[in-house]
Structure formats: C-alpha cells, structure tokens
C-alpha cells in the first residue's frame, strides 16, 4: 500500500446527508463528539425535516447534519462545504449547491438506481450527466460493503442496510484521521441491550474505515490540528441541554426546588426530556395537557415557592401570553424559555428563526413589561438560563429567554464551569408578619416580597385584577393604575442598573458597528473578524439583554458612523433600536429557516464600507 499524503487544514466543513431514516443525526453527533474530544473546536447545524419519516428517498425526507471542525476558535457551523456525504440522490440534490468547487463528494453509488433517481426527480443520473463534474467525487457502494461486512451477524438485509450510516462514519474517520474509540464506546453503551445490533454497527464502522485503508479510493486524508482553546476541562454541550443544566444549577445554588411545566413542542422538547431525568436533584417536571396549563402550573409553583420554569417554542408562546400577563400582574418569578422556530403558525418546526422577538416584547394585552434576554451560542444557554432565573427571583418578574432551533440543536465545546464560581443566587422569602404589605417594594429593585402560602400569619390574596399599591387589594382608581403601571415598567427598566458594561469587540469607535442578538452570534463574529483582518474599522456588539436594553448601549452606538443589524427575521430588533436611540440602523435580514453564513454578513459589511472587493490589505 502506497503512502498517501496527509493534508493539514485549519478548518473543515462536513455535511452528512441522507434519508431521515438513515441515522445522519446520530453519526453527525458522533463525529462532533469525537472531534471535540480530539481537541478541535466544533460548530454544528442539524437540519432535518419535521416529519418523522417522510416518504423514503424523497427531497422532503432529506436529513442533514453539518459540522465545522476547526484548529482555532470557530463560531459557526461553516459556510460552504469541504465534504459532502450523500446517501441517496435526494440528499445530493438538496445539498450539492453548498459544496465548494472541487470539494469532496462521497456518494452511496448504488442508491442512484432508477427508483432512487425517480424519487429525487432526476431525469438522468447526476453521477453521469456532468452534474458532479466540478467535484472530487467518490462513488462507494456503501450498502453492499456494509452487507458484506455483516454477513455473519445473522441480521436480515433490512437490519444490515440500517448500519450503513456507521460505514459512512468509518470512512469519514479515516479521511480526517479521527480516533474511533469514543464512538466504539458509544455504540457499546447505546446498544448494550441489543448486542447483535451493537456488533453490527461496530463492524460497519470498522468496515468503512478499513475500506478506505484498503482501496486507496482517497489519495489523501486530512488533518485538522487541535484548537488552542483556553485551558480547562471541556465537554461538548448542546443548547437545549445547556438550558436544562443552567436551570438545575440555578435551583441548586438558590436552594429553591425546581418545577418545570411544559408541553412537548419542536424544537424545545429536549429541555423537558433532559430535566425529567434529574429527579434526584428534586426536579419536578410536569407534562401538562396544553401550553396554557404548562405555564399556569408553573405560575402556581412560583406562588408556592418553587423556582418555576416553562419551556416552549413560538406557537406555544402565543398560547402562554395571557398567563405571562398574570405573572406580570401577580409579580411572581418565572422563567419562560422560547426556542424559536420558523413561523408564523406551525411554520417550519425544525427550521430556525429569530422572529418571536416582538412577540416576546409586546405580544400581550395592556402595558406588560417583561424582561427579555437571548442566548447567543449553545454553551451560552447555560449562563443565560442561570441569569434568567436569578433576575426572575430578584425582581419578582417573569423573564423570557429566547433561544432558537439553531443554537438549541447545535452543540459546541464548553469549558466546564466550577459551580462555586457561579454568581451568588440569593433568595429572600418574607416570613416576618409585622408591617407586611403584599405589594410593598424593595427600594433598589422595586420587587415585591415573595411570601409562600403556608407562612404563618401572612395570608393574602393576589390575582390578575389591578392591585392597590402596597396593600395589593383590588383597586380601580385612576391614579393607582397610573402608579402601578409605571412601577411595573420601572422595575423592569431597573434590571439594566445591574448589568455589566456592554462589551464592544473591536475599536470603541469607527465606521461601522454590527449589532446582533441571539443565535446570529457566530456568523456575525466570524464576518466582523474577517473584516477586521482586512483592516476595516468595524466592531461588533452582541446583546444578551433586549428588555431592558443596556444603559450604555445608546452611547456606544453613537460612536460609530453606521450600525448594521443582521437578524433572522424581517427586521425586529432594528425597529426597537431605531425607536429607542433615533439611529438609522441598517437591517440585514434573512428568513429562509437557515442561519446566516459568515460570508453573507461579510459581504454586507463590505458593501456598506464602500464596495471593497474583498481583498485583504
């Protein structure tokens, strides 16, 4: 066997695409974990259909998993693909345009039969008609090779066929010189109760690897060296998982028992699944009869003294609106997590969007100030969930935490935090009866006291009717409503007094600042850093808090000639910024159900900065 060259790359973007029953998400996750364990930085983009099993082989059923592996600190799942694995013609058709010219294309060649081509609506085979001419195409009969490797397992053909995802993964592991130990361990654990299936998947994985060793199909393999991340102990962390951990951390640090009321909804259900496994932490999870019951039960739990959380996605947030307002009026602590997805209505449940911001801000009757914050990256979900809980309890208010399908389903390496270094989480529950008034307020925060039913001598009544200042009795007097409306608004505004100074990445003044929020963090950061490398005077600010906006934001933005605001919507935060600061911010919007690529934002920056041709100077 001839020595084959090993090419070193700073970063590589790989997409595994197949039918939704092909197990692409599973092997994609394995590749991610293996790469993270190896020491790379990673960014992921799972992209799958809402249907559990769309008709096999059709475009509707294509499921993809994109992974960006870097030898440096990367922030996105990658723009264009270096490698595309297509398990069938539909997967090729749906994904080929993302592949770089001369990129590596690996196809399961035998899936390109008459039936497969017809299902993908190809009139001729793309492998033969010039469609794939500009790429390094490798045709591998993955199904046959898998079956050959599994012939002694006693599995039937269908069961064998289902192992071909691990054959493909074995090939990728060879191609990128990845160790297979972690995946071997994973297979053994996951299928521990089905030893035959475990054995078959292991054989398929090794067969894919061995195929590359033996056949010399690939002239070279690639190496993506370890990334130089800050020292520490790391693990891979997904966004939804991080929210669950952040909430548990808040419960543990505060000493409050945790109650989650939730109703299953894509893409937020994984938070419910995750938290329901933490019962030994005293976590109570309640799968309610509907979204309204989910939040209502959480409000009840908050009234009774628990750290209360409800999780949902956009359509669920619509249903929760009335109950959120009850929490506003009753001034009870509650964390509402919205993992946004493409809307309106049912929209595209598995695709990402940032279009619920204005709903979170204003989607309720009356003057209804609700703190709103947004997580920017999968691992950031941990800190955000923790902070949302802290602010909710400290200010006796519901807090909406916005995540989205992209960061919720995405994963990245996380430097594991020492629980002792988390910010202190103080809880004050009032127990002394003297001079008690249910709506008296803390001088600094304007929070009312939290008094738990069962506390001797402090029985009182709350509810959705307007409250009399201090006493909390039902009251319809004009001056009182004016006062209470302003107090509720001021309470939320005062959260800003407790926020750290806003960070500006790049010069504190200049030609352009890119202002982002939520899941656009990665592509914005990458785009801005590229432009900074070009010598452009571009900075960026990324908001975690949207209501209230940071106290220093207006001054910061005014140090720049232009403000650019990329959003995965038709322009929502930009309206608030324009209204708040009278700044002529420029909107960059995308509403395709997909995150921005860094290149899209970079191009816009270059356009604004005067049509630079993109050459580095």
């Amino acid at each position, binding site marked *: 066997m001839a020595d084959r060259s090993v090419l070193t790359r700073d970063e590589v973007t790989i997409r595994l695409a197949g039918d939704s029953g092909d197990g692409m998400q599973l092997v994609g996750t394995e590749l991610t974990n293996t790469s993270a364990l190896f020491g790379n930085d990673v960014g992921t983009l799972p992209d799958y259909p809402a249907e559990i099993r769309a008709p096999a082989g059709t475009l509707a059923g294509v499921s993809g998993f994109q992974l960006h592996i870097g030898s440096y600190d990367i922030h996105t799942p990658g723009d264009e693909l270096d490698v595309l694995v297509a398990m069938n013609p539909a997967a090729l058709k749906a994904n080929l345009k993302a592949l770089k010219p001369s990129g590596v294309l690996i196809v399961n060649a035998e899936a390109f039969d008459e039936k497969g081509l017809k299902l993908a609506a190809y009139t001729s085979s793309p492998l033969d008609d010039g469609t794939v001419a500009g790429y390094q195409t490798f045709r591998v009969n993955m199904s046959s090779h898998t079956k050959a490797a599994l012939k002694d397992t006693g599995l039937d053909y269908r069961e064998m066929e289902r192992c071909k995802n691990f054959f493909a993964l074995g090939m990728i592991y060879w191609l990128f010189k990845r160790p297979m130990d972690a995946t071997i361990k994973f297979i053994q654990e996951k299928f521990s109760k089905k030893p035959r299936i475990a054995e078959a998947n292991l054989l398929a994985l090794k067969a894919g690897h061995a195929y590359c060793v033996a056949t010399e199909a690939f002239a070279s393999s690639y190496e993506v060296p370890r990334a130089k991340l800050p020292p520490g102990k790391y*693990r891979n962390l997904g966004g939804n998982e991080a929210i669950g951990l952040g909430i548990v*951390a808040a419960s543990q640090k505060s000493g409050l028992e945790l109650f989650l009321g939730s109703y299953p909804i894509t893409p937020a259900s994984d938070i419910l699944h995750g938290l329901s496994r933490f019962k030994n932490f*005293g976590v109570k999870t309640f799968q309610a009869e509907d979204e309204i*019951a989910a939040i*209502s039960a959480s409000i*009840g739990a908050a009234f009774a003294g628990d750290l209360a959380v409800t999780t949902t996605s956009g359509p669920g947030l619509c249903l929760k609106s009335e109950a959120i307002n009850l929490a506003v009026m009753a001034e009870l602590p509650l964390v509402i997590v919205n993992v946004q997805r493409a809307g309106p209505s049912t929209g595209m449940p598995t695709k990402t969007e940032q279009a619920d911001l204005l709903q979170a801000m204003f989607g309720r009757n009356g003057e209804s100030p609700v703190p709103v914050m947004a997580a920017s990256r999968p691992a950031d979900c941990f800190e955000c969930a923790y902070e949302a809980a802290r602010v909710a309890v400290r200010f006796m208010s519901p807090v909406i935490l916005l995540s989205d399908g992209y960061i919720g389903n995405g994963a990245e390496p996380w430097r594991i935090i020492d629980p002792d270094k988390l910010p202190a989480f103080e809880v004050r529950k009032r127990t002394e009866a003297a001079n008690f008034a249910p709506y008296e307020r803390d001088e600094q925060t304007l929070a009312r006291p939290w008094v738990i039913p*069962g506390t001797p001598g402090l029985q009182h009544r*709350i509810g959705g009717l307007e409250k009399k200042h201090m006493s909390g009795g039902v009251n319809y007097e004009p001056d009182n409503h004016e006062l209470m409306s302003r107090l509720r608004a001021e309470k939320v505004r005062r959260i800003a007094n407790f926020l750290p100074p806003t960070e500006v990445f790049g010069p504190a003044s200049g030609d352009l600042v890119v202002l982002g929020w939520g899941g656009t963090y990665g592509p914005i950061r990458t785009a801005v850093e590229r432009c900074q490398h070009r010598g452009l005077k571009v900075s960026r600010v990324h908001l975690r808090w949207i209501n209230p906006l940071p106290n220093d934001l207006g001054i910061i933005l005014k140090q720049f000639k232009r403000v650019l605001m990329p959003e995965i919507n038709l322009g929502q935060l930009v309206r608030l910024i324009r209204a708040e600061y009278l700044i002529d911010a420029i909107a960059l919007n995308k509403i395709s159900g997909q995150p921005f690529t860094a290149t899209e934002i970079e191009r816009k920056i270059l356009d604004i900065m005067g049509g630079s041709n993109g050459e580095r100077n």
Partner: protein
Amino acid sequence: MVSETEVPRPQLSKKDFESDQDIRWCPGCGDYAILATVQRTLPEFGIDRDRYVFVSGIGCSSRFPYYMNTYGFHTIHGRAPAIATGIKAARPDLQVWVISGDGDSLSIGGNHFIHVIRRNLDIKYLLFNNRIYGLTKGQYSPTSEMGKITKSTPMGSLEHPFNPIAVALGAGATFVARAFDRDPKTMQEILRLAHNHRGTAFVEIYQNCNIFNDGAFDALTDKESKLETTILLEHGKPLVFGKTRNKGIRLNGFRPEAVHLDEGTYSVGDLLVHDVHRWEPTLAFIYSQMAEDPSLPTPYGVFRAVSKNCYDQDLGTQLDVAREKMGTGNLRALLNKGDTWVVE
C-alpha cells in the same frame, strides 16, 4: 405530609376565615350562602388559615378567594385547576381549594377541568353552577338548557348542555357530589366528606343567579316541591324520596325509574341502595342522568367516593425513589458528566 392535627391549635371561628374585603356580589346572590357555609365549615377541620390556598379562575364565583382570610389566587379564566396543580406539586402539604363556575370550568377551562380530575390532584373543587354567564351580563353558558333565551341567543340556544357530574365521572373523578346553595346543611356535610377525601373532590353546587337566571333551581329548592323533585344520595341507604318518603328509585335494565312504595307493587327491597365506594362508575353515571329526566328527582349528595393514586403525592414519591437509587444530585458531578477532555 405535615399532620395538621398533632399540635393543639386555638379554636378558629367563622369570623377568622372572613377577610377584610367588601363583598361585591349582587344582593341575593347564591354565592353568599356558599361563602358562609365554607367559612362556617373550615374551622371544624382544625387547620390554620395560612395552610389554605383558594384558587379561582374568572367569573362571579371566582371572586371567592378575596373574601377568605387564607392565601388566595384569583387567576385567569379557566386556568385555576392548572395553577392549583403547580401549587400542589410545590407544596403537597397545603390545603388547596379551587373555586370555579360553569363557564370557567366547562367552557374556557374544560381541558384543565378534565385533566386535573384525571390526575386526581389532591384538591377540593367547588363548581358554582348557575347555568348562565353572570359577570359578562347574561349570555348562555355550557350548562344552560337548550332553547335558552339570553342576550346572545335571542332565538334560543342551539346547544346541548353539559352535565358537570357526568363530565367529572367521565374524566374518572374519585369524589363527585352535588349540593344546593339553599341547603347549607347538606352542603356542609358534603364539604366535610370532601375534606376527608384524598384526591380531587369535585362538588357541583347549584347556585341561583338572581339577576340573569333567577329561579333556575326553584323547583329543586322550594320548600313545597323539593322533596318531590330531589333525592338525597346517602351511602348504604335505599334511594327513597317524596314528601312522605313514599317513592323510590329502582333500576329497570339500565334505566332508573321512580316507583311508588305505597301501592303494593314495590317495596324498599326493590330499590337501589347507594354505595358511594362502588369502584365502577356506571351506576353513578346513571344517577347523574336522572337530572335530565323530568319524571325523576334530581339526585344530590355524594355520587361517588373511591380511592386512587394522587398525582401530587406520586410526584414526590418519584423524587424520593430517584434520590434513593441515584443518590442526591450533585451539581459538580452533573456538569462534569459524560465525555470530557482537558486543554492544557
């Protein structure tokens, strides 16, 4: 569970359960009698006021918590059972009472109503049924009779009414009872039984709205007619009614029928004997349908009282089991779980 009876407590009175809020129901409303009966009954249980939480939705009846000197939460329309679920999950030791109306429980809150019953949450659930929307000034409700002329149905309602007892039984209720606002004595007895029940104790209370649906239950509550038009269900006793207790209910196939005991054909031995603890709810359901039949008396009292697991208690048990099996959760270990690696 915290036992409320261990420590001797000062004897509370009705007055101790009255809040300082002015009551704003219309003069003559049936709600007054219910409020007074609840306030009069609670002191008997020897439980401190601060261990009670009254939770309500929206509607006339739902103002109830404001008038109780206990903890209270006047919430949003139809959602009281869901909010009560969270309260009980957080604090299973508290006495939680849900106060609701026919619109609140059976229209906008229908879903929560059936699900709280299905879970058998350990609460008391009082449904004030006046068969009308009062607070919105007189539209038909889900328990209004068909053909009802109201502000929103000038030509008569086209809808078949819900029978709350039947809905509750259909949802698997473990305790189902009916009381009348004008019969506080029986109501009090039912509240005592409800208090002793573990699980959702559902009590429908026929309540007169003297403004928008006055007299809806007159035939059942008037001194003159009530002995002929109603029948009290008493555990272990035959179903006898009538001014001279000369009539009874027997079962003819699946159909209940009223028979005379003084005509020689039937005797008490032919009558149904009420068993509140009967596990299968069929007979209770048959009783629930008697209210729809003008030839039969309307039953009140306790229809059913059986024992089933309670959601709130089982929830706590699961946490205990998890702690026993896995050990009490450790945050540091949780954060460090799974595959990790160290960057030097």
